[in-house]
Structures are given as C-alpha cells and as structure tokens.
C-alpha cells in the first residue's frame, strides 16, 4: 500500500527542471529527511496507547449495543406491520364476499307541521281555524290572568288542570287541521 517506494523522485523533478538541478533537488530532500530521522519525535506513552485502545473497545461495545437495540425495535415494528397487513388482507377478503350492494345511509326527517296545512289551498278555512285558535288563546290568556290574581276563589289547582286539558285539546285540534 506504500506507493512512495515505487516513486522515482528524480524523474518527477526532471519534469520541471533540468537533470542536473533535479539531482541536486533530490539530494536536498534526502539530506533534509536525514535530519528528521536523526531527530526523532518523542513516542506516545504506553498509558496513552492503552487509553486509546480502551476508548476504541468501549466505543465498539456501545456501537454493538446500539445496533442490537435498533434491531430489536426493527423486529418489533416488522412484527406489528405484518400483523396489520394480515388483518387488512383478511378484512378485504371478508367484505368482498358480501353480495349486497353498498347502501348509502339515508337521513329522513319528519316535519312537526302537519302536511295538510302546508298543502291546503283553502285559505278561508285556514283563516277560520286560525281565528278560532286565536280566540281560544285569548280566552286562556284571560283565565291565566284570573288565576294569577286569584279571582276564582282559591281553587287554583283545579283551574290549572282544566287549563292544561284545554290547551292539549286545542293543540290536537289545531294540528289535526
């Protein structure tokens, strides 16, 4: 893997200068590197090397723990995903067998107003009914006032019941048309 030995420095220099100069340059480099060899840098301490190796071992252990943790999570997710897919497949199969066509939900409503009133073209009759209703309401109003002022001699409870009966009757008569 060391390509330095394969390299011909003199030839490299000769690309940029004359052979004689190139030779001198190579010699300068050789002498310069000789100085570096004669003055070696200090060596890393044994404690430092041991510390680095310990850090590497610790890092690798942590990494393996992380990977196994990740794998566990991945397996769990895969199992859940598989279960969901199976359920979905079964559901689709199950619903596909039903022959009945899909029926849309239909909302219905009922009007509280009698249809006969709305559809009636007999305005005169309707007016008469309304006039009677109005008169009855006015009568009840009067009775109510009498009750409030206690004009019927303290027999309020009976009067209220009668009034209620009357109201129910009016109501049913009105809505019957």
């Amino acid at each position, binding site marked *: 893997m060391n390509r330095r030995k394969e390299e011909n420095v003199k030839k*490299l220099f000769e690309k940029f200068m004359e052979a004689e100069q190139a030779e001198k340059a190579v010699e300068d480099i050789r002498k310069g590197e000789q100085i570096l060899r004669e*003055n070696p840098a200090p060596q890393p301490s044994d404690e430092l090397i041991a510390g*680095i190796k310990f850090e590497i071992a610790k890092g690798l252990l942590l990494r393996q723990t992380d990977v196994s943790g990740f794998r566990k999570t991945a397996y769990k997710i895969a199992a859940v995903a598989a279960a969901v897919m199976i359920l979905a497949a079964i559901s689709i199969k199950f619903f596909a067998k039903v022959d009945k066509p899909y029926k849309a939900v239909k909302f219905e409503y009922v009007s509280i107003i009698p249809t006969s009133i709305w559809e009636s073209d007999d305005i005169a009759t309707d007016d008469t009914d309304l006039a009677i209703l109005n008169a009855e309401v006015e009568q009840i109003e009067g009775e109510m006032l009498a009750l409030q002022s206690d004009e019927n001699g303290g027999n309020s409870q009976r009067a209220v019941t009668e009034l209620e009966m009357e109201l129910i009757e009016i109501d049913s008569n009105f809505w019957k048309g």
Partner: protein
Amino acid sequence: MAESDGLARIIIGCKKGDGECFSQIVDIYASRCYGYFYRLTGNSNVSDDLLSELFVKLVEKISSYKGGSFESWLFRIASNIFHDYLRGKQRRKKLLEVHKKQLESEPTETKRSEGEQFDRLQIQLKKLDTDTQELIMLRFYSQMSFKEIAAMRAEPIGTTLAKLHRGLKKLREVMEC
C-alpha cells in the same frame, strides 16, 4: 506484498468491528501519527489529545474507507484534525487578544508543557511557515508519495515538489547554523 496483505486483512477486520484489529492499527500507526502531531504542535499534551481523536475518528469512519492507500486516508483524517485544532487555536487567540490581561495570565498551548524540553529540530521548525511544516511532516510520517500528497492537498504536483524542496533546504540551512 505480504505486509500489505496483512494490513488489508486488518482493515477488513476493523470494518467488521473487530477490536483486536483496531488495536493492531493503533500499534502500527500510533508512533508515526504522534510524531506528525508533535512536530506540528510542539506540545505533547495536545499531541496526546489529537492522537486519541484520530483513532476515535478512525473507528467512526472506517466504513467510508473504500480501498487505495490506507496511509493516505488515515493522514487525511490526521490533517483535518490538525487543521481543526489550528482553527480552534486561532479562535482562542482572537479571544485572548480581546482580553489582553487574560493573555498574560493564561498560558497558550504553544507554550511548553511543564518540564518539556524542545529538541533543536522543534525550535528550528518554527522558522518555517505552517503550510511548509505540515507538508514536510506529511511526507515524512505518512510515507505518502508526492502524487498522493499533491492529490490530498489539491495542488499540482510541481507545487508540492517545489514547496517541499524549498522547505527541507531551509530546514537544513537553519539546522546547520
């Protein structure tokens, strides 16, 4: 050939997360990488930290190694770590310039560690610019070819040759004074 085969096997082991293989990589390259960092920083404590960081990064990035010169790949990481350190140092320097009083009281990292003795080479190296220093150390400790160094530094091979030649020549001159 056998040496490179052995290294290839170790690297495969590293890729599989084998702690023993990483340990062997540390044994093979720790000394050279430490020398590289020490000659560039001139500080054993900083070199300790940078070497530790390098091997931590090696573990993290080993999966991205796709063959080719392993030294080239490893020293590219080492070079990046050194440049990060330089940037951090520049930031700290700027901060210290703002607080001049602190500058006087706080020791900078370029100062010697307690009891540390610089050899002559380390002192003379400071007379070269950082780029030339790095180029010399990269060539010496990584054992990379000029072609590989030029590619790593993204510069023409002629530029690399000329810079290294000038740098080593100057280093020899100052060492001989």
